[in-house]
């Protein structure tokens, strides 16, 4: 009971904060484009304009179509990243040689913003689906492999020892001990990989898509509709956060709870 009223209180104060933020935004817009004349009206989005734009795009189906298309792309790309990244991660964590030599490389490539790969993508795959997928895959694969490597490295050695003294072979060791022991760490790491994939998708879509959230964003720019640009940005944030919360946070919470690691 106490706890519930606490959360409601917190929620109210968060909403109040947001409302205040919107109010400030509206004030800056009104003053800045009006009496102060700092901006041309078309150069600054207004809360009302963004809401109108959102309503319009929701009404004519653009938003749903764009979101669905983007999500589909990122899911395919992320799935490919999971496969390649897991393989790389296992390679790097099972062999000292690759751990010493390949891991620093992975770390290096990982730090490269995915937009840097766009020229390659266009050169190799042209403008289209394949090049977007390429950017997503290359933008998140290394993060996946590092997440896997990190999670495996931090598995308590005692689990492995215990399993070995019970006669576990290499395969069982990985499948039945190291993997389940690493799972919470893997999920925590994948959250970050997901955000990399989502950002990479936008880099790809902004360059070479004809449909999708990134494309809708750019078409807003082309029509000089700053409200549409802002509206799409909000949707991009929302979708990214929703997937993070609904998918990864839930999975992680479930895994932790099963192991008695959180209440």
């Amino acid at each position: 009971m106490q706890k519930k009223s606490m959360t409601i209180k917190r929620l109210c104060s968060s909403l109040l904060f947001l409302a205040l933020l919107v109010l400030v935004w509206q004030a800056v817009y009104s003053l800045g484009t009006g009496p102060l004349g700092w901006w041309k009206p078309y150069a600054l989005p207004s809360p009302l304009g963004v809401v109108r734009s959102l309503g319009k795009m929701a009404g004519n189906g653009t938003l749903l179509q764009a979101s669905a298309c983007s999500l589909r792309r990122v899911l395919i790309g992320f799935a490919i990243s999971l496969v390649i990244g897991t393989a790389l991660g296992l390679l790097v964590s099972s062999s000292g040689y690759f751990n010493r030599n390949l891991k620093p490389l992975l770390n290096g490539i990982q730090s490269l913003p995915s937009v840097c790969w766009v020229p390659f993508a266009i050169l190799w795959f042209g403008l289209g689906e394949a090049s977007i997928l390429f950017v997503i895959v290359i933008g998140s694969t290394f993060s996946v492999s590092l997440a896997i490597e990190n999670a495996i490295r931090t598995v308590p050695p005692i689990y492995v020892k215990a399993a070995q003294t019970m006669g576990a072979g290499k395969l069982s060791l990985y499948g039945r001990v190291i993997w389940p022991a690493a799972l919470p760490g893997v999920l925590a790491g994948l959250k970050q990989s997901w955000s990399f994939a989502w950002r990479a998708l936008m880099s790809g879509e902004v360059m070479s898509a004809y449909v999708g959230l990134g494309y809708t964003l750019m078409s807003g720019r082309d029509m000089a509709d700053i409200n549409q640009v802002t509206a799409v940005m909000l949707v991009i944030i929302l979708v990214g956060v929703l997937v993070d919360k609904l998918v990864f946070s839930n999975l992680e919470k479930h895994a932790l709870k099963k192991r008695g690691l959180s209440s």
Partner: protein
Amino acid sequence: MALEIKNISRTFEGSKKETLRDISLTIEKGEFVCIVGPSGCGKSTLLNLIAGLDTPTGGEICLDGRKISGPGADRVVMFQEHALFPWLNVLENVKFGMKMMKLSEKEQNSRAEHYLKLVKLWEFKNYRIHEISGGMRQRTALARALCLDGPVLLMDEPFSALDKQTTNKLRADLERIWEETGKTIVFVTHSVEEAVFLANRIVVLSDNPGCIKDVFQVDLPRPRHNDAVEFLEVRHKILTCVEREVEKFAKEEYDH
């Protein structure tokens, strides 16, 4: 013939001193041997070598004439920390080793039931590891080790993290199980009292480098009582031996 430890030494990389030097010991089948010594003298190192989790820098260890070259289910280890898997429940944990041995599901279930009942945890078979107490965890680990029915059981201070009452109970359980199954048990402890309670033979290790200081045969009748005169005499004799090794260590013992 059972477990032969022949001139074992172990020096860890990066350290100049030997952790273990020239340890030789033959442990007969069905014996209950306790290894005592001040902390840091190399007891766990020795046990890990027997387990095959570590390789000696000199000498060799043989079980029934075969040289030990890696870990195996014929020498299950029970660690100080329970080392149970938190993603499995009590029953699944106990069945883990038997799965590795590829026993039939029926055999797994019947053995798991038998040993979980033996350690009085059958009612808790569906509990998760974080839902049971420290003593219950060690009992689960014991059941898990016993299920494999190997000839040798290696135990590294398995009860040292538990309260006195639980420890006493588990010692008595272990003694009973040892008498019933006739396993060879190598039991590491820093408590001389525990060693006198359990062992046929007590090996005292000295510190720096770890080598065998003395070996005591303990022929007290079982079950042993830690307030009997004979018990206290044996305990005193061994404590004096260990005491010379490290004074602080002995003091801790008397404080109990």
